[in-house]
């Protein structure tokens, strides 16, 4: 596998401002670092400032620009504040990426065992947050002229993962949200898409490292033979989606997963 050629894309998103929710680790951190590498000003939206500062430090170490904003994206007031701080710092918003996910996403549930707390925790982040983000950030995205609204979903929502029915329902619901919003915002020049990634996050790496046989079996599910790097595979694809090269693509669910899900 050849190394990702970042140098050729160095100024691809220069001058644009990107908000990434859930950017304190995992995929969100990879997205932030990728966006910073191609010149975007990155707003690292996180629940805990400490994790956000770690991400911002990585972005800045690569020569990028980052602003950390503490925000519980399930709450409208937090989104209002996120928008205000971003616009005050950078003058506008061109890209919104909703990546934040509940800590319960990876938990296994039988349907009969799901209680209201499990439900609220997952749905607030998956379904209330994108509603708030869309409401609050529509105008800046429209004014951008190159507005991009991207939701990180999951192939679980496509193939109907059995592990966590609430997660599966939420990720499938995000598809409906993206398709409908894409049609609503198309006349305003804002594209709306979803990404279903297969990412080798630190948590996934640790999990697979404890069981080499499972890791080998898991790799076999991917035609490319591996899960994606959060920055160089998932982040790079999202960077492309944010660029002018993807300006005519909207209402799509894009699987960035090494060929894992091919049933569409």
């Amino acid at each position: 596998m050849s190394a990702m050629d970042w140098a050729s894309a160095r100024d691809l998103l220069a001058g644009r401002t990107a908000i990434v929710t859930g950017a304190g680790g995992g995929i969100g951190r990879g997205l932030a670092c990728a966006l910073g590498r191609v010149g975007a000003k990155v707003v690292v939206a996180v629940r805990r400032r400490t994790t956000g500062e770690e991400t911002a430090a990585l972005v800045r170490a690569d020569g990028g620009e980052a602003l950390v904003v503490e925000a519980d994206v399930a709450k409208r007031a937090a989104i209002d504040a996120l928008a205000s701080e971003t616009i005050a710092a950078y003058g506008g918003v061109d890209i919104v990426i909703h990546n934040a996910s509940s800590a319960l996403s990876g938990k296994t549930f039988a349907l009969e065992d799901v209680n209201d707390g499990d439900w609220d925790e997952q749905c607030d982040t998956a379904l209330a947050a994108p509603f708030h983000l869309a409401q609050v950030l529509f105008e800046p995205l429209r004014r951008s002229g190159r507005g991009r609204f991207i939701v990180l979903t999951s192939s679980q929502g496509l193939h109907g993962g059995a592990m966590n029915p609430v997660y599966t329902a939420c990720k499938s619901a995000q598809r409906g949200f993206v398709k409908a919003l894409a049609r609503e915002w198309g006349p305003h020049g804002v594209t709306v898409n979803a990404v279903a990634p297969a990412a080798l996050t630190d948590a996934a790496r640790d999990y697979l490292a404890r069981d080499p046989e499972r890791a080998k079996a898991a790799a076999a599910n991917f035609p490319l033979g591996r899960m994606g790097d959060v920055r160089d595979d998932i982040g790079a694809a999202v960077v492309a989606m944010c660029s002018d090269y993807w300006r005519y693509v909207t209402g799509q669910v894009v699987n960035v997963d090494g060929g894992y899900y091919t049933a569409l």
Partner: protein
Amino acid sequence: MAADASWLHGKRVFAVSVGAGLADAVVDGVADLGAEVTRLGGDLDLASAASVAAGIDAAVAAHGAPDLVVLSVIPTAAMRPDAIDAMAEADWREAAIEGLRTTMRLLQALGPHMKPHGGAIVFVAPSLSLVGTPRMIALSTLLEGQRGLMKSVARQWGASGVTLNWIAAAPRALAPFDGVALAARPDAVTIALGRAPDPRTEIAPLLGYLGGDAGRAITGATLMLDGGEWMVP
């Protein structure tokens, strides 16, 4: 073409309709196929998981466990077209999040009665979420969430012999959409059959198939009944 009335003869059917009543005409057709239909919905207390379970338990006590459940959960807030930036948060929550929660609670309540002997659950919904509909973003979100939940539960309950499937019908075939101004152009693609299906005589027979013995090997599927409009991949 007449459907085979033997498919549902003597079968117990629960028709659970919450909100918009999208499946009412389809359920009439299910009754035509010889099923013993119990209509539920307006009498269910949806306030909590316990109250939903109590309502389903009472229906089972009165009529026996269902062989087929026809499910349609569409809060009325989801049927009101509006731009997302003009939508009240309370309406979003009622339409998208609470509608989905109610669906989950109904499945939770039905599971203990269906898993011991198997059966079929069929959602009846408009097809518009598969292509997305502007000004009805909450409805699109709800429907795709329900469809994802349907697939997940189909996997969880498959070994128990309970199947779950999804019928995506042309909105124009469902009476509650008669007065709804859909923003999507109706002539965006050619409708192969040139018309929408009749819910009573052309959609209901598919429920008869899915709820009868012949349909036991189908689960987690989405079946488009839109006259060949979108032909999804």
